[in-house]
């Protein structure tokens, strides 16, 4: 019996969300009196994988098959299922990402496991039940779910678990092969197109976000948002109407029908705070609202607010951030 953690890597590095997943898995293992093994997917370096020891992982399995560098649903599912059999894993922990959820749902059927996605806390295991808290109703509530099967799969929401970090500890990196065949790669993407990040921060991974709404008046004013984001090392985001009229790309749209973010800091500029928008951002740790209308509903969900004109306030904030460093 052990805990298997699925660690996503890109460009040689372990993704931040996967460090959280690794730490979550190690803590579950400790709760159950066992150890946590990781299986790494994507492009990784041995040195970075060994560093997962800092999150409490004892062993990392890595299949150097070159076609595994990009996400292939079937191949990843088989790889992880094979690792899970080898390690006799009762619990598999992965990220609630577009990779983790895709693989997790297939694995749950293949391994006859019960699955909880969007999980925000460590499990409660007292009283003979295994209960996890997950986000539901698009950020408006939580549900405590009992995982009934012998095997369990947990997909952990980004930025809801703090990655523990014990400097200097290393994990053993072991080579591993799932004996994948060409057929397992039949659903490989024909092409992967990455966004032009140009030094920017990726929204789903960001721990600070500066977001603009219709109050920004037009795409030509987004330099104000970008300047503050750059100074803070934040990602940029927007409300739905802003992406609907193509002022900003769709992948920046947050809310109930966009992406859900839970950064440490969310700064909303010229956004009214409609319930559908709040649903996507209200699990942020600190919310700042800048709006010229003191009655804007967003102020009710905010920790800090400035009643004022974004065109006046944003440059002042950017200047103040630059003064800090």
């Amino acid at each position, binding site marked *: 019996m052990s805990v298997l953690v699925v660690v996503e890597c890109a460009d040689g590095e372990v993704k931040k969300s996967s460090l959280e997943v690794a730490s979550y898995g190690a803590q579950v293992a400790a709760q159950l009196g066992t150890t946590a093994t990781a299986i790494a997917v994507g492009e990784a370096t041995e040195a970075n994988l060994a560093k997962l020891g800092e999150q409490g992982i004892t062993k990392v399995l890595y299949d150097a098959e070159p076609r595994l560098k990009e*996400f292939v649903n079937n191949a990843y599912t088989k790889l992880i299922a094979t690792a899970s059999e080898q390690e006799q894993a009762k619990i598999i922990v992965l990220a609630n990402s577009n990779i983790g959820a*895709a693989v997790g*749902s297939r694995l*749950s059927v293949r391994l006859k496991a019960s*699955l909880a996605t*969007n999980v925000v806390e460590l499990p409660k295991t007292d009283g003979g039940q295994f209960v996890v808290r997950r986000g539901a109703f698009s950020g408006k509530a939580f549900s405590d779910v009992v995982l009934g099967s012998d095997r369990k799969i947990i997909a952990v929401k980004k930025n809801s678990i703090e990655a523990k970090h014990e400097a200097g500890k290393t994990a053993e990196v072991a080579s591993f092969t799932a004996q994948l065949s060409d057929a397992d790669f039949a659903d490989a993407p024909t092409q992967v197109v990455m966004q032009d990040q140009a030094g920017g921060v990726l929204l789903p991974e960001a721990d600070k976000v500066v977001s603009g709404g219709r109050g920004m008046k037009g795409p030509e004013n987004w330099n104000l948002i970008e300047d503050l984001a750059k100074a803070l090392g934040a990602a940029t985001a927007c409300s739905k109407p802003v992406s609907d009229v193509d002022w900003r790309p769709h992948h920046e749209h947050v809310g109930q029908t966009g992406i859900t973010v839970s950064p440490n800091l969310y700064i909303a500029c010229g956004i009214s705070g409609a*319930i559908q928008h709040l649903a996507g951002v209200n699990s942020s740790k600190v919310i700042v609202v800048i709006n010229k209308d003191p009655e804007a509903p967003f102020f009710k969900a905010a920790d800090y607010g400035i009643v004022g004109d974004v065109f006046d306030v944003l440059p002042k904030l950017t200047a103040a951030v630059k*003064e800090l460093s």
Partner: protein
Amino acid sequence: MKFLVCISNVPDTTTKITFTPDNKEFNKTGVQFVINPWDEYALTRAIELKEAAGNGTVTVLNVGEADTEPNIRKALAIGADDAIRVNAAPQDAYFVAEQIAAIAKEGAYDVILMGKESIDYNGFQVHGMVGELLGIPTVAPAMKLDLSGNTATLEREIEGGKEIVTVNTPFVASCQQPMCEPRIPNMRGIMTARTKPLKVVPPVGEPARTTVAEFALPPKKQGVKLIPAESAGDLIKLLRNEAKVI
């Protein structure tokens, strides 16, 4: 081409979420239910692809009790040809996936479309489970879907970019913006929807693997601290020294 579009019946996006006093159930009192917004992309795209091909059928499927029928009729009014309701409360995602897989198999559907995720339970999982149950690919979440003969080309969103994926039918895809402009029913659609076939079938398969023990609401905010616009820069100091987030 036979399209199967799975729709979930969810509380309207403006709903204030509350639970029964024991926190065991969602409080439906006064709540308006709608077709899950993401499922509207699946439905509209299926209708568009059928129209472009000049032949085919679009069947909508819901796993739910009789109170979901107004939204099934709405989907028929938008342009689906017929509907199936599996007569059972959707106990959990695996239970729902089993029902969808059984219907898809029996009806030999070529393209099974869903929404990205339900806005009530936010599982983002039924599509993967159905693909695995049927042994066919799932592309989730898809931002674009085109068909040429039996081959589909899709754009799948990934963190920080997108993948172009080509699959042959049958396959499962879960849909999101900007795939299409979701349609709304017109008068003629509403009239014809009344007489379109809606078949009610009993559930199959194994029981659910998960149960909800309890629901909870997020903690209330303390209240906003306002900073005068003239001294906006002070906010940054507060974020550093008080909130400690920068």
